């Protein structure tokens, strides 16, 4: 049984008299411990899918099964409890946190809400979480805007793994980071996946990163699936027009192709 199974997901936006299909009949599945990448040009519906899967917005049609349950049927307290298993890391690590928060408070919230640790146990849990993402415990009392972008994204990952999720949606999670930090964060993600069998829904426009981290890829164009399959196979030999365009537009990728050929 798939961990997440999305079928025929559709979301329309109405502007004036016209209807725009942000997501149009998209279906895919994610297995436990697997990374599925959603790639496509901007406006292709990647982030809308992320928000639909997390129930941040409601779909117009379609079905989402998470761990065998109808995820769209959950509401209120049942939905909030289920959210522990399905987490998200945002693109902009500064915007993803309350500007008034400290690192400790950010990590305290999920532990408190899902009753994972008692009040006295939480400081130790927070320290352990920080260490799991490669940070030191002395960062806990610092304010979110006092730490670097890379540290912030590590805190975001620590918040996401605090509830022992089965799936983390990474919405352009490394796009806002500079190149050296990006590699470290990707390694951290791969390491967490290897140790804890967390599945990722990895949303990115960067095919180089997708090829390095994802098992399978779904290429989106204007809200529809253009192509899907094994990440390396699809990116090395794209069949669809949008796939070819995306590969051609990725400069680092072209260079590796040239090196492979020579």
């Amino acid at each position, binding site marked *: 049984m798939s961990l997440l199974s999305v079928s025929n997901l559709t979301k329309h936006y109405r502007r004036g008299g016209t209807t725009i299909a942000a997501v149009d009949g998209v279906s895919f599945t994610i297995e436990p411990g697997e990374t599925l990448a959603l790639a496509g040009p901007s406006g292709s519906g990647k982030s809308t899918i992320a*928000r639909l899967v*997390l129930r*941040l917005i409601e779909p117009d049609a379609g079905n989402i099964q998470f761990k065998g349950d109808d995820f769209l049927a959950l509401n209120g307290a049942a939905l*909030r*409890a289920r*959210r*522990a298993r*399905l*987490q*998200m890391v*945002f*693109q*902009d690590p500064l*915007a*993803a*946190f*309350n*500007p*008034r928060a400290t690192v400790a408070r950010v990590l305290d*919230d*999920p532990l408190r*809400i*899902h009753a994972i640790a008692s009040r006295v146990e939480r400081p130790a849990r927070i320290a352990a979480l920080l260490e799991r993402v490669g940070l030191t415990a002395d960062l806990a009392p610092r304010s979110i*805007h006092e730490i670097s972008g890379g540290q912030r994204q590590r805190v975001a990952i620590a*918040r996401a793994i*605090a*509830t022992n999720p089965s799936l983390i949606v990474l919405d352009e999670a490394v796009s806002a980071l500079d190149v050296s930090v990006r590699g470290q964060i990707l390694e951290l993600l791969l390491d967490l996946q290897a140790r804890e069998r967390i599945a990722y829904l990895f949303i990115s426009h960067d095919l180089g990163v997708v090829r390095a981290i994802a098992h399978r890829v779904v290429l989106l164009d204007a809200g529809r699936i253009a192509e899907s399959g094994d990440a390396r196979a699809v990116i090395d030999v794209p069949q669809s027009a949008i796939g070819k365009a995306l590969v051609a537009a990725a400069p680092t990728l072209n260079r590796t192709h040239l090196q492979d050929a020579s």
Partner: protein
Amino acid sequence: MSPLNRFLHRPETLAGAIILGVLFAMALFASLLFPGDPQAIAGPALLPPFHDWSLPLGTDRLGRDVLAELFHGARTSLAVGLAAAAAALLIGAVVGTLAGFAGGVVDEVLMRITDAFQTVPSFLLALAFVSVVGPSLGVVVAAIALGAWTGPARVARAEVLSIRERDYVAGARVIGMHPLEIAFREVLPNALPPVLALSSVIVAAAILTEAALSFLGLGDPNRVTWGGMIAEGRTVLRTAPFLSIVPGIALVLTVLGVYLAGEGVVETAAVRRSLS
């Protein structure tokens, strides 16, 4: 420069702070400097100011010490002004946050109620409320707050509407936070600065409304108020104008002080926000 330095650096803010400081001192030390009932008779009636140094500001129609009344009146003015403004800001912030965050029917209902309150002149509302419920300090505070909460509510709603689309609110939902906790712990604190910017105007208006209510005889009859003093002096306005002028000046200075100091706080906070 520390925030306090920056705050006191502007001359108009400094003036406001000094006026407010004096006012607070008057309110605090009123019963120390003028023990006993300020409404007790202290000397001959209608003694003009600066004639008898034991009664420096003279006496009113009944021979009560004007200076003692002024000091005790500062208490009422400040207490009512601050309490009414605090109540108005609290109600406004809560209503605005709920309306902006919940959206839909809740938003419509709350904002139509706000509209209804806003269409009735706030002074008329306060007048009607006190007339019906009866004059006491708590009722006067409630009456003033009733007409003043709509402004903060609108500002809070507008701010919440922009904040609720931010990623950190989505992040709070993703970790399973209860919507009420998101509204009041994640959204409201970040929506507060522009709401608090209204506080100086609201406090000043509340002090004036309280004075106007007392002037019309709808203040707490057991307390000295500046508005009540002005009303008392009205009957002898030609022969003893100081009875109305002295509390009048106190009122003007207080409103000015509150406004200047309040604006200073807002400016300082704005600078700090843009620096961080």
